């Protein structure tokens, strides 16, 4: 499929920076200098642009992304919740504060196949730990929003099929 040719970044040099770094930073003592040389920019400009993209939220963070399984989290569960629409945001805010939860989103239901509207990722060193984390979330929702909770499930991942992250076309 032909990638859609839309301006991605705010300007061409930002876009070039995304392309040059989306696969990772060079493992050389001066990685920003290496990128600058590749793009024909001054190293100071590359660093300024990256700082600016961080400040504007275009870059969430710069760092390592571990494979969850490799670092011991073999039970990665997507907990999904059917919560009354009126209370969904309040419940989402509450779940999002729990240390066990790494992501929390509201998403549309797909009835009749899919009744859940809140998604919260949990990570355990074994299934029991993840199940306990989800049970604690359920107990919290039921105590704080007793009339709004209807059902939940945990979908454990059993295989990583792909984990490359964002790749825009050059």
């Amino acid at each position, binding site marked *: 499929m032909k990638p859609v040719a839309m301006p991605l970044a705010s300007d061409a040099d930002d876009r070039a920076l995304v392309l040059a770094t989306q696969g990772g930073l060079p493992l050389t003592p001066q990685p920003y200098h290496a990128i600058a040389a590749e793009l024909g920019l001054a190293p100071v400009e590359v660093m300024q642009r990256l700082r600016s993209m961080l400040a504007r939220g275009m870059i969430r963070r710069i760092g390592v992304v571990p494979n969850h399984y490799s670092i*011991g989290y073999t039970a990665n569960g997507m907990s999904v919740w059917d919560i009354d629409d009126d209370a969904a945001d309040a419940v989402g805010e509450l779940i999002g504060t729990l240390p066990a939860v790494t992501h929390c989103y*509201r998403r549309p239901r797909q009835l009749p196949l899919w009744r859940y509207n809140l998604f919260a990722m949990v990570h355990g060193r074994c299934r029991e730990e993840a199940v306990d984390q989800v049970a604690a979330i359920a107990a919290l929702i039921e105590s704080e929003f007793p009339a709004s909770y209807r059902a939940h499930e945990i979908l454990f991942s059993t295989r990583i099929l792909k984990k490359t992250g964002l790749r*825009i076309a050059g």
Partner: protein
Amino acid sequence: MTEAHTPAALDATERAIINALQGDFPICDRPYAQAAATLGLSEEELLERLGDLLLRGVLTRFGPMFQIERMGGAFCLAALAVPEARFNAIAAQVNAFPQVAHNYRREHALNMWFVLATESADAIADTARAIEMASGLPVFLFPKEREYFVEMKLRA
């Protein structure tokens, strides 16, 4: 690419690197030297360790995490209900799309869950249609309506 599904044998230095560098990697002339200093390592040792962790698949990436939505693009969670006999073939078809950033097998009737990342919001629907054409299966889209929390950091 085959991803690891079992815990790796990690030494204390490797755990320290993973725990310290999930964000805030410095932007300066010698960022590895600066990061290494806070870990009590030499620049050379940190570079070697990072290269090794990437090679072993303990790290899937090292670099900037882009928020494509702040650049006019879109992310969207999507799912398929794939017949068991066709699972591997469909996984290969789905993974072949560069717009598919992550893909996981999960235990549910909807057994394949993937994230689409595209350069425009319209391209999500176009990509979903293209995956439906390739696979012959309906793609269920779960666009984010609200984000309450994202802090993808785990202690090694």
